[in-house]
């Protein structure tokens, strides 16, 4: 059931303003989109590969991730998402989901009818530009993740993933990387880096021993952001406007 109410799209508008020059009418059109809100607990499935979707999810609170799984159970996460992100902008034009989208933490999502978003992109060129850029940056992130999983050594790989998470979190207005608390589990890091949980634990232990992160088993805290970026050789250029 969709309704109109106070649109919870401030973070989305803020993000799209980084991607294209929006005017007042663009902003008004975005905040007037119909929506329904759903809250889902950590590890809950927001979208399942294969299902047909006629709505797009705007992440309002919490963190989400996209992944694909093998029949044998192995899972590869290939992106994390932050408040203000449209989790599945492809469903504006491609209704069949080709991957899973899961709640990495407890999340709140606003579901917007794909047809309304499509109409908006046809009527508001600046919004269309912003969403197109968002898709292109998604593609850039996926390229970087292929490089990360395929070619970086385990310590750099984990460090790079943490740097990106902290950088995108900052761009979403959630605070600086230095001192950032990242609610990512060892299992999620394992699935995002292609390393086993044992290897991930070893790499985190090395980073803790060097005073670069703290790890209480539930969440990681970045204690030395500069050192983490140095280990990862992190260059945020691939994030384009999504880097803070």
């Amino acid at each position, binding site marked *: 059931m969709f309704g109109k109410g106070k649109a919870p799209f401030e973070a989305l508008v803020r993000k799209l303003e980084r991607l294209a020059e929006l005017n007042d009418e663009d902003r008004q059109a975005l905040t007037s989109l119909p929506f329904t809100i759903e809250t889902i607990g950590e590890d809950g499935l927001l979208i399942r590969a294969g299902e047909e979707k006629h709505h797009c999810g705007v992440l309002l609170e919490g963190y989400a991730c996209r992944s694909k799984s093998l029949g044998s159970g192995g899972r590869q996460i290939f992106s994390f998402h932050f408040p203000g992100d449209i989790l599945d902008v492809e469903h504006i034009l491609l209704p069949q989901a080709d991957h899973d989208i899961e709640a990495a933490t407890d999340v709140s999502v606003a579901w917007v009818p794909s047809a309304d978003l499509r109409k908006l992109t046809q009527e508001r060129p600046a919004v269309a530009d912003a969403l197109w850029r968002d898709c292109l940056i998604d593609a850039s992130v996926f390229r970087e993740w292929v490089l990360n999983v395929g070619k970086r050594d385990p310590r750099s790989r984990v460090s790079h993933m943490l740097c990106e998470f902290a950088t995108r979190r900052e761009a979403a207005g959630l605070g600086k990387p230095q001192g950032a608390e990242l609610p990512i589990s060892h299992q999620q890091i*394992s699935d995002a880096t292609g390393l086993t949980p044992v290897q991930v*634990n*070893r790499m985190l*232990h090395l980073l803790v021993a060097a005073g670069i992160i703290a790890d209480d088993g539930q969440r990681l805290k970045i204690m030395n952001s500069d050192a983490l970026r140095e280990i990862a050789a992190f260059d945020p250029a691939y994030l384009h406007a999504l880097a803070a």
Partner: protein
Amino acid sequence: MSISFQAVRLDTSLGDDEAVLAFRCGRLLAVLSRLGPIHGDSAGKWYVEILFSQAINHPRTPFSSLDELEEWIADNAEQQ
């Protein structure tokens, strides 16, 4: 199927240096390390560092004992 083990030390600074070479019919099948205290509940378990068989997927979780590893190999390995 005959699995035999030879104790070795790994050249690592991570504390997981106690290890065994696992041989099947006299040929090196895998290198396993015994997980140290940094691994919490998994400390003391055996983790497959390298597996040379192309017929078995790398197990992502460690084994409680070398007997458990042998059972797992018997269940998963194609006879070569």
